[in-house]
């Protein structure tokens, strides 16, 4: 059977062409191996293109006191201590070099007055740390990586969806997928496979994530035998658009607050001053006056409370709206118009000016925006080895948003783009090394391929199966209602029951039309992945009987010390979800001492 399929032999197969996938491909190609990248959309359209604010890296160009240690400590604090300490260390140490490499490949960052890469402040980072390109950092990053990929002669298979990983015993042997343009199958035989498929935001109705974010990587990895960790931690970005309804969830960059934007309720109160958590008491400005000084550039002042971590700001907004102090369309106000000059806003936030003008007919240099939390990022993901990014499946690697561990209970802004560069690079090298050391391709099991192809075809044959569009909409409602921002045991238990029912129906979808470019058919497999991811989130959230970072339990409103170094790992055992309570790796001695000594305050020089 598999002889008749369009078959490609690639030593290293990278699934995903965002920042993580392209970094991995470029680094793998530094070894003596053949490398290919597959992606669902056209090259250059992955989510990374949408990133706005910047890349976090302790370059120390603006704040000379910044170093990897401060970045490490901020990341750990932002993640409520649940981060894998070795990943956080590697990330903090290697991101400056990766940013400089990106610059050498042609990325044109904004500059400081002395001609270096400029850095802007962002929530949870104690120093000005984000290398940026106006509010289009992701565009510059993906274009640079895309050009480098092409220049290196790496094969790109665009508009090609992988649906299954193939195994030889317990090691990876390749992947199976479909060409979107005509629906025909494609088979990859590979010695190493890197998953860089991004997130799962399509689980939720209000989201900043595109149609691509359907948890494909999470689901494929689970089935292949890998584990998912930290799945309770879904980041709801505090500022999504609320109106018009059709753009609900579209992101308003944190850069707006970084540039001085403030949050107001319907009573014109700057409410964030009332929501400073104990852990951050003393590290944010207690008064408007001090916050204003910080915005004006005085780094002896402390930053405004609007720049607290995303979990804190999102909960604060939710509380204000629930208390009846919301804006007309059910959000709160984000005002930069009264904080900065029109010229300044246009120069620093051109994409936001454009977005609001075109989509909401609002001039943000004149009027406030209305914002509400939107599903934005998945902190959890596939468990990987910090050094190599290898999963529990030999030869299978994961990096970028699809991998877990670095961010713990909450991700700091800017720490994703740096994550992609650092761990994409590491995964690429490790996968390249593995492939270099193997003489032959692992064998493919023809019968397995045939079965998998049949399962893909099945929705065309079912007479009265489920409509995948309706199922997807129902899933989003269930997730919003029972597995949303505010959780408790009852809701999560009901949510799991509803999701189990959805899982049954998701295995029974039907579609029609031709195989060619058929989004209805594609949704049949995507919705299965989403339901599986939804179940993983709900189970992990129910087990986690505490509130920590992005995970808020109404019935357990405080963090539980017992769970401080505990993670829940989800895997499939005999087709059933299995949840294991495990210890987070302990930090090595030097890191532990740093963590204990850290006060979170800036060093005075």
């Amino acid at each position, binding site marked *: 059977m598999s002889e008749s399929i369009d078959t490609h032999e690639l030593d290293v197969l990278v699934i995903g062409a965002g920042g993580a996938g392209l970094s991995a491909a470029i680094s793998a190609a530094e070894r003596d191996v053949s490398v290919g990248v597959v992606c669902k959309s056209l090259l250059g359209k992955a989510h990374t*293109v949408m990133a706005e604010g910047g890349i976090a890296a302790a370059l120390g160009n603006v704040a000379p006191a910044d170093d990897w240690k401060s970045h490490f400590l901020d990341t750990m604090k932002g993640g409520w201590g649940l981060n894998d300490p070795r990943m956080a260390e590697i990330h903090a140490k290697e991101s400056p070099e990766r940013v*400089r490499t990106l610059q050498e490949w*042609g990325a044109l960052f904004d500059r400081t007055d002395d001609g270096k890469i400029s850095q802007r402040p962002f929530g949870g980072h104690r120093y000005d740390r984000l290398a940026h390109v106006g509010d289009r950092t992701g565009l510059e990053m993906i274009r640079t990586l895309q050009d480098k990929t092409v220049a290196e002669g790496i094969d790109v298979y665009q508009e090609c969806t992988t649906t299954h990983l193939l195994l030889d015993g317990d090691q990876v042997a390749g992947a199976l997928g479909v060409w979107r343009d005509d629906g025909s199958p494609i088979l990859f035989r590979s010695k190493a496979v890197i998953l860089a498929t991004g997130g799962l935001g399509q689980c939720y109705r209000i989201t900043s994530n595109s149609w691509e974010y359907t948890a494909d990587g999470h689901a494929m990895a689970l089935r292949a035998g890998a584990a998912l960790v930290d799945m309770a931690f879904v980041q709801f970005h505090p500022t999504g658009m609320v109106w018009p309804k059709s*753009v609900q969830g*579209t992101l308003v960059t944190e850069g707006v607050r970084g540039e001085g934007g403030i949050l107001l309720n319907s009573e014109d109160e700057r409410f964030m001053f009332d929501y400073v958590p104990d852990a951050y008491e003393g590290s944010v400005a207690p008064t408007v006056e001090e916050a204003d000084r910080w915005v004006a550039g005085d780094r002896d002042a402390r930053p405004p409370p609007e720049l607290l971590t995303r979990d804190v700001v999102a909960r604060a907004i939710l509380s204000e709206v629930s208390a009846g102090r919301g804006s007309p369309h059910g959000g709160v106000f984000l005002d930069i118009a009264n904080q900065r000059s029109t010229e300044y806003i246009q120069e620093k936030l051109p994409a936001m000016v454009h977005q609001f003008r075109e*989509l909401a007919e609002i001039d943000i240099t004149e009027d406030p925006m209305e914002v509400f939390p939107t599903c934005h990022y998945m902190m959890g993901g596939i468990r990987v080895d910090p050094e190599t990014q290898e999963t529990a499946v030999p030869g299978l690697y994961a990096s970028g948003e699809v991998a877990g561990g670095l961010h713990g209970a909450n991700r700091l802004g800017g720490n994703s783009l740096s994550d992609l560069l650092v761990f994409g690079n590491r995964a690429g090298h490790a996968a390249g090394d593995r492939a270099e050391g193997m003489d032959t391709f692992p064998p493919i099991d023809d019968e397995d391929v045939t079965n998998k192809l049949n399962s893909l075809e099945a929705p065309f044959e079912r007479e009265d199966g489920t409509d995948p*569009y309706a199922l997807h909409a129902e899933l989003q409602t269930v997730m919003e209602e029972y597995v949303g921002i505010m959780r408790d045991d009852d809701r999560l238990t009901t949510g799991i029951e509803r999701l189990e029912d959805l899982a049954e129906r998701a295995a029974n979808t039907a579609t029609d039309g*031709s195989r*060619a470019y058929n989004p*209805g058919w594609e949704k049949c497999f995507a919705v299965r992945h989403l339901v599986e991811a939804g179940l993983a989130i709900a189970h992990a959230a129910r087990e986690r009987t505490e509130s920590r970072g992005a995970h808020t339990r109404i019935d357990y409103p405080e963090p539980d010390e017992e769970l401080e170094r505990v993670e829940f790992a989800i895997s499939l055992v005999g087709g059933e979800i299995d949840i294991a309570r495990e210890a987070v790796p302990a930090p090595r001695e030097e890191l532990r001492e740093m963590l204990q000594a850290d006060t979170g305050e800036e060093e005075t020089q």
Partner: protein
Amino acid sequence: MSTQTEGQPPAEEATTEEQSDEPTGDRDPETDTTTYTLEVYRGDGEDGELVTYDVPIQAGMVLLDALHWIQANRQPDLAVRWNCKSGRCGSCSMEIDGMPSLSCMKRMSEYDADTPIRVTPMRAFPVVKDLVCDVSWNYEVNAEIEPFTPAPDADFTFYQPDVERSREFRRCIECFLCQDVCHVLREHDKKDAYAGPRYLVRSAGLHFHPEDTADRTEWMKEDAGVGYCNITHCCSDVCPEDIEITDNAIIPQKERVVDEYYDPLAQIKRKLSDVWS
């Protein structure tokens, strides 16, 4: 107005397949929607037709939302590209009443609810299915451009004004709307001879990079065929990123070609360097 491109079927008269009970353009106070009529191209490169759909539209909806409504409620296999839904990724390019546009940035309120809106794929490229075209030619052209080439000892110290010179061109989201509208590609199908505005924007972005050292003039003249552009400005008019393609990217590069190839002094220099290399 345009001639036929290979693989692009002629747009035929609309056939009505979908009719709702509500009269077109009516406002339904209960659901707070207004009904719009869309005539959407359905078919592949060989065969196709315009199919009419009545779509309930809420305030603030964009054309892409209307297409998603059709997918979810009428035609699950309707092919359309999109990703960001906020004008940042350049995926959702198509022609709306013949105008090359990003469908995620076209608010329905810009259109008249009483007149059918015609939605067709970009015309300069072969159709794969419905509103999706085969744009792979663009990627092939791109691969021929000499990539960013810094000097071996470049130290990457440069200033904001140096960055600004290249910035405009680097805003490009690769929507290919400029390629679609350019008559050299659209009407004359000179894809073998002319790279099109998008790639003159790319080479300008590279050229103005403060650390780039490559000379792409020969590519510009011989392969990109910059001489084919006759400065009609249509590309600049459709660019969703407001890049002044013609004035800021193409004209300066045309001038460089002229300087290098038709200026006698430069010609001698070039000959000499040919001998020496």
